[in-house]
């Protein structure tokens, strides 16, 4: 699964720590989600999308492998 979290963060000038605090996880978790090492739960994905005022599909999308 791919995501645009890094791009969205850059657009609103948000750090990983700020995003982590906003959704209630650790900075390492945000980093792991951004780099594709960890697939977030539905709730976490929704929280992240809500942070950027966008839908989940705008932030996350499936790979061909998924």
């Amino acid at each position, binding site marked *: 699964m791919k995501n645009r979290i890094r791009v969205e963060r850059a657009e609103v000038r948000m*750090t*990983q*720590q700020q995003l*982590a605090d906003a959704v*209630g*996880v*650790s*900075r*390492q*978790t945000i*980093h*792991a989600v951004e*780099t594709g*090492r*960890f697939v*977030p*739960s*539905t*709730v*976490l994905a929704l929280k992240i999308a809500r942070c950027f005022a966008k839908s989940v599909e705008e932030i996350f999308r499936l790979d061909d492998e998924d």
Partner: protein
Amino acid sequence: MHCPTLKFANAMKTMLLPHRYRAIGWWILIPTALLGVVLYFNGFDGLPDFLLPSDQTSRWHQTLTSETAIRLYNNVALIGILVGTLMVACSRERVEDELTTALRLDALLLALYLNTGLVILAALWIYDFDFINVMCYNLFTLPVLFLLLFRWKIRRLRKEARNEE
């Protein structure tokens, strides 16, 4: 919202000890592990002579070398290692989230596989009383493996994320 993953993660969180138990766990684990090493090198036959009073006729010496005392040392070492290890491994991280829960589960599963593999290898290569010794050590290899693997996974995660902002 009904989310099986989140329900599982929350259930796992409630089964974890508060973060402060990690320090308590280390305070229990390190001395009891050292005691275990000392007892091991003395054949689990009580404390070595250099730790006992020099006067072998004294009541204190006889108390420390009694059968009950020897059993007590072994139990303190074993139970201390088990309790300390579990406290360290099963206490919450400062920020406990779904990733740490997933890592904890991975570490537990991997520890189970490794421990089972070690027992199978021991069953194939070691026999008689030596095998009984291995089974005795096997009492705490699963929790110790779990602790080591979980801390390794957390350390690797932090290292990978270190250079990011």
